């Protein structure tokens, strides 16, 4: 197919950034549309950030509010850290999508509605009394463009003999074409995508291309739009980039860690939203020596992981909150066996099944304490989709240095979100050195619990002559590893395991600070809320306030200088998508009062809400 993008002859207005949300019925192809728009924008050199938002049901009843699936993307000519708060444009495929999303569209923003989706049947499904597009307030508040997308798509693909159902499925490509015209996006990457995805079904491919081009042509010809918008490339750090999603980045980080440590990887897991995509990604890496095991349940998954770790492999398991709860007992075993492995928790709304497709940060205390007995483990959290790559490597480094399981706390927002990722040079990746004790003649007894300078015990693997030893959940005698019920030994081993984790604080980089190291207000955040916190702090700083930001990637232990930083500000605020879990840890560990900004609505923080609260608190601090 000739991949060519037409050029507009209408006016083009240059803007610094656009936030657009595409919303329709789940099944309308909104996620696909969003992903394509993101990739295309990233390829145009924009910085991009995305927020897919979809229902937990595979197909919630069509046309209902519960069935609305949305995808938000911000693309900009400057560095951005969030998918944006207020929408410049909203595309809705039906009334339900309109009424559930309209409140986020800014005044004067563009509302593009698929007019064909607005009829009596749809009004009933969306539980609206009349056509919401007809309300006079809508016309007065927004720039409304009604497009009969279904009809226009059917016309555009009529020569392909697809049947009505298949023809109608092309309408998301029509919408895409229109959006591409409006924001000056090139059609080429999507034309390539269509070729790759539908190449084996030439009719479908051709129809989608026709719909895409028809959407573009509609924008160019309709009088509804007098001009289109252009977002210039962002000034990012030089390098080669690709767009990457969090779960994809974690999978690539794991495989990279496996390579740079010279270990084949074993991944034992059980499917659960939003962690499953890590499995799907890793199954593609078998030629890297990756073995994936879909176990019968979460418990078998982590047990297989521990078995593989005992055998000398790089061993990883992942789940989400409810699955991590099931893994608790085995995590304790992994901890007392002192074997290296990675346990990933892609958090979602809880408790119990909670909000499976929505984001939350409420497993922090589970990660810290969700095991019986004294069972401290290192806990790390990536701050963005791209950071998942680095965290995976760092987790494996710490796991082998300490000989213990390391927990990674990701979340649904990072896992499904995407951003441009500067592709690392393999040579620049840190090396991870692993040594296994060599075989002996068995003359001197092997000491499986003798420790090195990191308090780590040797990783002696089955198959090595002379090092036969038994591990297990019963308390081990120091040095020999024999079962011991001695009270003093139990105290000593408990203290040693805790000290081993605590000592990591001295081997991780000191906590960096955005802003001054003293001031009126310190914002402390962790995990996927980095972007909104960073952007909000930046704004409040630019308004002239003495506010700084630290974002913790190491949660247990925290970098050694965190305590000092907390005490260097008049006030400390901790925004979290939970009821105050990090705040509880900071208060108990450092005896510093902290103010919480807490939200459990299944939604990320908006920058605006944080700016408001930060300003309120910093002004109060200034007046103290």
């Amino acid at each position, binding site marked *: 197919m000739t991949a060519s993008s037409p050029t507009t002859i209408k006016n083009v207005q240059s803007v610094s950034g656009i936030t657009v949300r595409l919303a329709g019925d789940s099944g309308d192809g909104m996620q696909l549309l969003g992903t394509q728009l993101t990739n295309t924008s*990233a*390829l145009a*050199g924009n910085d991009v950030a995305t927020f897919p938002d979809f229902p937990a049901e595979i197909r919630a009843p069509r046309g209902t509010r519960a069935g609305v699936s949305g995808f938000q993307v911000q693309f900009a000519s400057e560095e951005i850290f969030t998918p944006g708060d207020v929408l410049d444009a909203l595309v809705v495929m039906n009334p339900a999508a309109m009424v559930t999303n309209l409140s986020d569209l800014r005044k004067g923003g563009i509302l593009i509605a698929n007019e064909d989706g607005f009829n009596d049947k749809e009004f009933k499904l969306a539980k609206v009394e009349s056509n919401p597009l007809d309300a006079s307030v809508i016309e007065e508040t927004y720039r409304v463009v009604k497009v009969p997308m279904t009809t226009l798509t059917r016309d555009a693909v009529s020569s392909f003999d697809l049947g009505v159902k298949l023809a109608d499925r092309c309408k998301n490509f029509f919408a895409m074409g229109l959006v591409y015209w409006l924001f000056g996006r090139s059609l080429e990457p999507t034309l390539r995508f269509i070729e790759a995805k539908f190449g084996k079904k030439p009719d479908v491919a051709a129809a989608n291309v026709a719909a895409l081009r028809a959407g573009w042509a509609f924008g160019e010809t309709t009088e509804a739009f007098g001009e289109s918008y252009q977002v210039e490339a962002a*000034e*990012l*750090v*030089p*390098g*080669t*980039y*690709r*767009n990457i999603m969090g779960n994809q980045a974690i999978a*690539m980080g794991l*495989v*990279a860690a496996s*390579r740079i440590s010279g270990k084949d990887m*074993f991944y*034992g897991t059980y499917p659960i939203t939003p962690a499953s995509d890590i499995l799907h990604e890793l199954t593609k890496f*078998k*030629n*890297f*020596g*990756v*073995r994936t*095991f879909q*176990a*019968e*349940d979460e*418990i*078998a998954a982590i*047990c*297989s*992981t*521990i*078995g*593989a770790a*005992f*055998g*000398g*492999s790089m061993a990883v398991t992942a789940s989400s909150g409810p699955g991590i709860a099931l893994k608790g*007992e*085995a995590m304790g*075993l992994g901890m007392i066996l002192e074997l290296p492995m990675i346990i990933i928790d892609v958090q979602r709304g809880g408790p119990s099944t909670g909000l499976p497709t929505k984001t939350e940060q409420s497993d922090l205390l589970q990660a810290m304490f969700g095991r019986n007995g004294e069972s401290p483990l290192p806990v790390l959290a990536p701050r963005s989709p791209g950071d998942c790559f680095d965290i995976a490597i760092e987790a494996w480094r710490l796991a082998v240095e300490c000989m213990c399981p390391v927990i990674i706390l990701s979340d649904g927002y990072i896992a499904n979100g995407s951003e441009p990722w500067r*592709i690392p040079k*393999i040579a620049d990746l840190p090396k991870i050195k692993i040594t296994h004790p060599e*075989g002996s003649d068995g003359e001197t*007894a092997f000491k499986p619990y003798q420790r090195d300078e990191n308090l780590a015990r040797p990783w002696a693997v*089955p*198959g*090595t*002559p*002379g090092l*036969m*030893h*038994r*591990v*297990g*959940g*019963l308390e081990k005698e120091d040095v020999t590893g024999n*079962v011991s019920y001695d009270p003093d030994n139990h105290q000593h081993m408990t203290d040693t395991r805790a000290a081993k984790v605590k000592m990591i604080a001295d081997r991780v980089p000191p906590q960096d600070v955005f802003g001054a190291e003293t001031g009126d207000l310190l914002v402390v955040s962790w995990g996927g809320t980095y972007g909104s916190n960073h952007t909000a702090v930046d704004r409040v700083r630019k308004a002239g306030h003495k506010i700084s930001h630290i974002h913790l990637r190491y949660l247990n232990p925290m970098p050694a200088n965190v305590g000092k930083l907390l005490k260097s500000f008049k006030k400390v605020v901790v925004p979290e998508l939970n009821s105050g879990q990090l705040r509880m840890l900071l208060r108990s560990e450092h005896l510093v009062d902290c103010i919480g900004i807490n939200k459990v609505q299944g939604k990320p923080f908006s920058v605006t809400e944080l700016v408001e609260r930060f300003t309120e608190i910093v002004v109060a601090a200034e007046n103290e």
Partner: protein
Amino acid sequence: MSLPVLKAADFASDQDVRWCPGCGDYSILAQMKKVLPELGVPREKIVFISGIGCSSRFPYYMNTYGMHSIHGRAPGFATGLKSTRPDLMVWVITGDGDALSIGGNHFIHMLRRNIDVNVVLFNNRIYGLTKGQYSPTSKEGQITKSTPMGSIDHPIMPLSLALAAEATFVARSIDAHVKHLGETLARAAAHKGTSLVEVYQNCNVFNDGAMAYAQEKKQRAQNVIELQHGKPLIFDEGKKGIRLVGNHLEIVNTADVPADDLLIHDEKAPNPSIHMMLARMSYPEMPEPIGVLRAVEGVATYDDQINAQVETAKSTKGEGDLDKLFSAGDTWTVK
């Protein structure tokens, strides 16, 4: 250079064995130590993995690699280990509570995957370590600490369950029948795929004599049939046999029926129906079979297949290249 010849004592660890005096576990431990040197596998290539329970202390007493894990989950650990280390000989040591109650799920999936591990299931029909509650194999009506009015659970028959899970090797032996036990363990070790050996084991503290009908020499002849491949099912010193009538098994006097009428044991039969009938024979209505009920070779093992897929991927896609992986798809360059 000649390889050292190992003896049973070489497989004993330096740890004191702490089972109750008179426990049937001692006999199983002794037979294991006796069988292993005959297999010619170096000690460092052998791993024992257990769950929780009296039986599960077993790995501590073997001078091999070992892991005492968590309740019911030994199959999971064994799966991860064997999938990544097919060069090792892995034994799973479990009990009736461990394998069939808390670990029932894992037990089934280990068998249907046909992971190449050897499972020894110590069955004493009682919870020993938690001091005397009924187990999934306890008889209906059994009075225990947790069932003062008698157990109302219908018991599980471990061998039937294993066959239903598509097990490729299913056998049974008895702690007190040491020669038979040793031979059965050796057969299990030789099998490629999951091998299950149920061992009737006496808990002389909490369920003493529960299986005396099979253990005591005097009773054994009447109550137990020793299965042998290609041989007719005969017991009670040749006086009685088993014949297949319609769709059930019945006991006959060998004096009354021609030898050709007796059921000939075929452990290799691809269809497990007869094996299932044997597994369901239970005292006191029927003599209980010991020996190998089923031994089907040639079924692909999970560990072989997971590793074969890795090799296939390497040969078709080439050894993984991180640079290529990272740069796949659409990329752009910022200068």
